[in-house]
């Protein structure tokens, strides 16, 4: 009994060891986003609080925590406060199976990819509930848009993952990374190039980021599903969105860009060895793409989003599952070469 509880405490400690860095990474990522978008707009970005404005995110957190949370009239109170949690919890829970380096993973389960799909598909409840519980038309419209979009792009994302697991022959994320061993050209981005693009694009759509941010659509429906939220409740949505962006970046690096493996040959000394820093560097580049997209592309029109998801990504995905199967069957790709 006591051994059980010690295990429980130890697991909780490990969970915190993953969650707290993720939350801090979100804070720094928000700062980085504002800086990058500022530079792209030929502005300075935040530069007042702390050296180079580095403490801006923390000042924002304090501001949001001190603000009043206004509950709309006739809103469903319980669900109104549950919704931000329902958005945040899956975003953080998904990190449980992300391997950071060899053996450095919170839960090395065999059905890791399935677990990820399960968690990411739960995130949509936060958005739908927020839209419904707010008792506001704009919020409901945003929730509806988001629900349809997330469900559609999940299919494309799932097909991309099917290709990965056909080539890797495992649902375990650590094994998927190990299956890509052997250098830059053995990573799955090369045989699965269209799927890597589709996975990342679907990830952008799943996180409701520009140019797929019709769920917020400031120009049409004010701020979409979280229009009625303020203060710390809004902060939770914010946290969930950015945690999801970082998660998608990490996952794309793991599935298609060799995870913690080094792009250089093993005899190159320290930079030839796989380490957590390679994963971090890859995820950083992909996370930067999110910001770049936001500063570059105008918002998609809603019917175009649906067309892209259903009529372009899913057919390409179906064909590429076949291609991946052939590559594997004809031994053109052998995992862990």
């Amino acid at each position, binding site marked *: *009994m006591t051994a059980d509880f010690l295990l429980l405490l130890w697991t909780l400690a490990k969970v915190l060891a993953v969650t707290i860095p993720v939350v801090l990474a979100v804070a720094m990522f928000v700062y980085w986003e504002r800086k990058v978008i500022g530079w792209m707009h030929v502005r300075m970005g935040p530069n007042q609080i702390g050296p180079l404005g580095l403490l801006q995110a923390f000042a924002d957190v304090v501001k949001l925590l001190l603000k009043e949370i206004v509950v709309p009239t006739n809103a469903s109170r319980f669900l109104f406060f549950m919704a931000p949690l329902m958005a945040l919890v899956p975003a953080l829970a998904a990190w449980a199976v992300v391997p950071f380096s060899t053996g450095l993973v919170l839960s090395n389960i065999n059905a890791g990819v*399935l677990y990820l799909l399960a968690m990411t598909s739960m995130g*949509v*409840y936060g958005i*739908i509930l927020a839209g419904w519980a707010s008792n506001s038309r704009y919020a409901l419209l945003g929730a509806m848009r988001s*629900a*349809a979009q997330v*469900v559609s792009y*999940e299919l494309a994302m799932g097909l991309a993952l099917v290709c990965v697991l056909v080539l890797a022959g*495992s649902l375990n994320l650590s094994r998927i990374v190990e299956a890509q061993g052997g250098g830059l050209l053995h990573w799955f981005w090369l045989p699965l190039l269209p799927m890597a693009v589709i996975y990342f694009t679907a990830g952008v759509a799943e996180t409701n980021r520009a140019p797929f941010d019709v769920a917020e659509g400031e120009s049409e429906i004010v701020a979409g599903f979280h229009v009625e939220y303020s203060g710390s409740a809004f902060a939770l949505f914010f946290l969930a969105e950015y945690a999801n962006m970082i998660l998608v970046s990490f996952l794309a690096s793991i599935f298609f860009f060799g995870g913690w493996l080094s792009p250089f040959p093993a005899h190159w000394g320290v930079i030839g060895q796989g380490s957590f820093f390679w994963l971090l560097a890859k995820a950083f580049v992909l996370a930067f793409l999110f910001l770049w997209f936001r500063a570059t592309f105008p918002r998609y029109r809603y019917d175009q989003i649906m067309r892209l998801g259903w009529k372009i990504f899913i057919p390409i995905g179906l064909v590429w599952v076949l291609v991946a199967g052939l590559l594997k069957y004809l031994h053109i790709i052998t995992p862990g070469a």
Partner: protein
Amino acid sequence: MTLQLLAFYFFAFFAVLGALMVISLRNPVHAVLSLVLTFFSIACIWMLMEAEFLALALIVVYVGAVMVLFLFVVMMLDIRVATAREGFIRHLPVGIGVAAIMLAEMVALIGVRAMRVAPPPDPAAVAGESNVAWIGRALYTQYLLPFEVAALILTVGIVAAVALTLRHRSGVRHQDVSRQVAASATGRVRLVSMPAERGDGGAKP
């Protein structure tokens, strides 16, 4: 009492609570969410029994997709609670009959399971493999034909559902995306070359 047993009672409590709320709550959206709670608790129980694949498939398929669409529909429909409640007494005998049969079936199942000798150990665990890989191999080799037949039936179902709701309306202005993409400036814009004006250019009001 071990932690595992505690966890089981915890999940089972919420599964039963959720199921009770589905049939007792007045608000249909709340009822759908209670059903989500039940599914999730059941998935947790399955996870406890190390049926990872079933548990995660339940969450991906039912919680992540089916219930989202349910919620979608329930939010859009204006369900009149009063009319839905009418005829409760009239339908009660049928309801009780169905419930009694289901209870008898469940008791029979439990009885049969209890009489059986200890169940054989998990073949996947004996072979030292994960049960996900084991299920995958069984589905795609031993049970390939039933699996494909099931997939085909589902596809037919999808096509039928689309065909039932497909309406061709006249007078709708569709966008032809391939035409839009193929559009080029040459057919639409005419660049006219004009001689530059000279003299007092710009001086006139």
